[in-house]
């Protein structure tokens, strides 16, 4: 090994930080961070005399909840992406009522805590409409989709705006209609800008869906709460919960970072 200690601890190029450290240094430092975290968890476990039987006894329920979280996320991903796209287009519409409705909606949704939004839509709107228990999941998924859709519409808007004015001018000069300009010029170019943050938003979506537990949707968090409520020993199940979410979110987060790097080099 030719590496000096210095190379393993300090990034080449110093504080400029624009040079990637050697792979050995990366692996070692990630391992170091993980070891530190594991030690921390271990200390907690030892001092609190954890009892994992509850987690084990409820493993089937926990797994069912985990699957429902995956399902909710998958449906909400499609809905929020579509909704976000429509909202982004509406925000750029030349029909002013449409444009400002979209803008106001996005702003209000983004500035409201998701927890509050879930209560308001389920007990408020749901109550007013008199919808029953069958609608609980649908309403839950719609609420999360609306919330994430508002953020996604901002991602799309930024992506569309990243396509230069000169490109739109060029499309006009060629004789493209507005729809053709979107189809052939704006969307393909905005796509590479949008994809990494969009995938990143999926991580938020997965995490945020845990709040649906407050309206008794039997997703992952709710199933963990059920398990822990039997003997009031809820910490163990929360460890399991964290693990179950991390299994989903970390790969997606890494994927988002990878996409970001790939598209950066291509342009």
């Amino acid at each position, binding site marked *: 090994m030719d590496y000096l200690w210095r190379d393993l601890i300090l990034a080449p190029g110093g504080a400029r930080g624009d040079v990637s450290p050697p792979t050995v240094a990366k692996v070692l430092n990630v391992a170091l961070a993980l070891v530190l975290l594991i030690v921390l968890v271990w200390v907690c476990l030892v001092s609190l005399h954890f009892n994992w039987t509850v987690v084990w006894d409820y493993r089937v329920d926990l797994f069912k909840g985990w699957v429902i979280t995956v399902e909710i996320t998958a449906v909400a991903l499609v809905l929020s992406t579509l909704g976000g796209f429509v909202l982004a287009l509406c925000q750029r519409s030349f029909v002013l009522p449409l444009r400002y409705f979209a803008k106001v909606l996005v702003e209000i949704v983004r500035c409201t805590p998701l927890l509050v939004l879930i209560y308001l839509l389920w007990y408020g709107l749901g109550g007013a409409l008199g919808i029953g228990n069958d609608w609980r999941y649908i309403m839950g998924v719609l609420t999360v989709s609306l919330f994430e859709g508002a953020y996604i519409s901002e991602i799309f808007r930024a992506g569309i705006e990243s396509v230069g004015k000169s490109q739109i001018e060029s499309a006009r000069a*060629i004789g493209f209609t507005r729809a053709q300009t979107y189809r052939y010029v704006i969307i393909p*170019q905005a796509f590479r800008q949008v994809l990494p943050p969009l995938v990143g938003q999926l991580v938020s979506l997965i995490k945020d869906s845990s709040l649906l537990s407050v309206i008794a949707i039997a997703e992952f968090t709710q199933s963990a709460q059920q398990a822990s409520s039997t003997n009031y020993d809820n910490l163990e199940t929360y460890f399991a919960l964290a693990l179950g979410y991390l299994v989903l979110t970390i790969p997606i987060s890494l994927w988002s970072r990878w996409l970001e790097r790939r598209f950066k080099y291509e342009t």
Partner: protein
Amino acid sequence: MKLSLQEVVKRFGTHTVIDRVSLELDGVHCLALIGPSGGGKSTLLRIIAGLEYPSSGAVALNGRSIEYHDEALLRHRRSIGTVFQAFNLFPHLTAFQNITLPLEKVHGRTKEEARDLAEGTLRRFQLLDHSHKKPAELSGGQRQRVAIARAIAIKPQVVLLDEPTSALDPEMTAEVLELIEELKQEGRDLLLVTHEMGFARRLADRVALLSEGRIAEIGPPEQIFGASQSEVTQGFLRRVLKY
């Protein structure tokens, strides 16, 4: 080309960029618009290209008056070729696709027709070896030549060029100017906004000098560059030809 401008005015807010410009040209093959920056050359070209609405006045190209509403302008823009200073090409498409896309989607050509037209044009401009490259892989001069190839592949009635070499270094400028000269020799009608005085002089059969939104002088290049009667023209040429 036949070009008729009647009392064309363009205002941006309170600022008048084109101030009652009138013009009647017939049988001109290359009109060069020259003049100081901010004089209104580009705006006038954009009005003729159908990219900008005049505030008032009338424009007719080749005997057909341009109606300034969206649908008619779309048709008008499809009948002419426009080349800008830079950023003409779509960066996510190859040179070849940049040419075929409008042929297929705007002009209703089949895939095969579009391919043949694009290949033919690229070959003529010695760009065939670069047809699979994205704009980022091309030099500035090559990019501009592909842009011109795209503009003429649709067989436009007129090609409008808005400072096509202003973003290029001298060597690339030469390569693009040569290509434009070729177009002229092929008998294609050109309308050119340029800062290249030598080029305007050699290529144009009519030169118009725009200053402060008005045509200070218009005439054949020998008159403008040799025997100008206008003080504005003389002052402008003295300034740009000094170095």
